[in-house]
């Protein structure tokens, strides 16, 4: 097939990069989702006025390139505050906020998507606000949110390719390192792309399937 100088060691090196990609993604998605749920419900409960400062911060994090957010956070932490933070920490921090910003929107949309008549039906049976939230809103909102949330998690994985800028050697950076040594850009890029695709595609399809299944009832 391909006549290549790629060795098993190099594949291990790539796999390490992939591992970093997945680790950064996992941390950002877990923390970001937790934050996003809190932010989302907060915004839904307190209304637009009180949530304005939070809304602004989240909006900023969706409106400037991730690359710049990383560079700025890095420069701010290090140059201005002189905190000794590893690139990995900065990367996880920025990606977490970034995930939270999108997740808050998803959560808010999902809670709003629960028909008010359904909530009224629950309250009219004598269920309290908390009971309504726990037994009716949350289960229903989860169904609405899950497909978009899966999309978000995959998006974060793809966007994590940018954390190379703060010296985190993730998958794409590992690929570039190997390209430097082996000079086989096409083969290496294809391996790298295939990795992302193999993870992303089935999960995206699964999300689409859930969306279809749950929108029917």
């Amino acid at each position, binding site marked *: 097939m391909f006549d290549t100088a790629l060795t098993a060691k190099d594949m291990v090196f790539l796999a390490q990069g992939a591992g970093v990609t997945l680790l950064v993604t996992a941390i950002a998605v877990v923390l970001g989702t937790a934050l996003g749920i809190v932010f989302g419900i907060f915004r839904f409960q307190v209304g637009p006025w009180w949530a304005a400062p939070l809304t602004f911060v989240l909006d900023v994090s969706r409106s400037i390139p991730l690359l710049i957010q990383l560079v700025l956070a890095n420069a701010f932490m290090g140059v201005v505050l002189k905190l000794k933070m590893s690139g990995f920490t900065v990367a996880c921090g920025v990606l977490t906020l970034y995930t939270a910003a999108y997740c808050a929107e998803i959560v808010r949309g999902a809670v709003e998507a629960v028909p008010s008549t359904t909530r009224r039906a629950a*309250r*009219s049976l004598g269920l309290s606000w908390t009971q309504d939230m726990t037994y009716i809103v949350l289960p229903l909102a989860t169904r609405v949110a899950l497909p978009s949330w899966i999309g978000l998690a995959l998006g974060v994985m793809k966007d994590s390719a940018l954390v190379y800028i703060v010296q985190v050697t993730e998958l794409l950076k590992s690929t570039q390192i190997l390209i430097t040594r082996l000079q086989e850009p096409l083969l290496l890029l294809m391996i790298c792309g295939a990795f992302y695709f193999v993870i992303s595609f089935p999960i995206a399809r699964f999300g689409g399937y859930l969306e279809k299944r749950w929108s029917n009832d």
Partner: protein
Amino acid sequence: MIEIENVRKSFGPLQVLKGIDLTVQKGEVLTIIGGSGSGKSTLLTCINGLEPIDSGRIKVDGTEVHAKGTDLNKLRQKLGIVFQQWNAFPHLTVRENVMLAPRKVLGIGKDEAAAIAEKQLSHVGLGDKLDVYPSRLSGGQQQRMAIARALAMSPGYMLFDEVTSALDPQLVGEVLDTLRMLASEGMTMICVTHEMKFAREVSDRVAFFSKGVMAEIGVPGQIFDAPQNPETAAFVQMTQH
């Protein structure tokens, strides 16, 4: 007894209820008819405290609904309500739909709640649908389930808000039959409806609402055959196509 005294209610600049006075006796079946936007649904949601009122008073069995100290969750157990649509909790089976409130609100045990659910569901003719999800039910069956769910709290009153409006014509009959059954069992009911034939047959009194005002109230024979108010006459005429 439900006593409504001079109730007013606005949404922003829009005055929806312009001073309603109405008393419903224990065991009475009252039907409310009227054009779209005349405030019928709003009145029902005010009666069980889902919406606050601007002024006036609503008392249920002597308890003032909108007074400060009133425990609304407790009061609502007395007032079953069924809406036009989207009543079912889609993530729970039919049985679980009916069991939820008895278990969480009344704190009844699982087995006992299940028994109540089965009894009420059989009562409305859904004894064979216990374990399916609402999406598998026809619209008429969903509405009957909503009725069973309300009945499972043993309410003293039932409020129905156009429960047949969203249904296919062939399904209307089965739901109306369930309401007729409840009426014959002596349940106190307020029904908002567009089904004039049903209203005439089942009601003790019929109230006609127009633009936030109760324009006329009386026995069915008066409202349908000899309306006093020209608006009532026009409305009744219009709905007899």
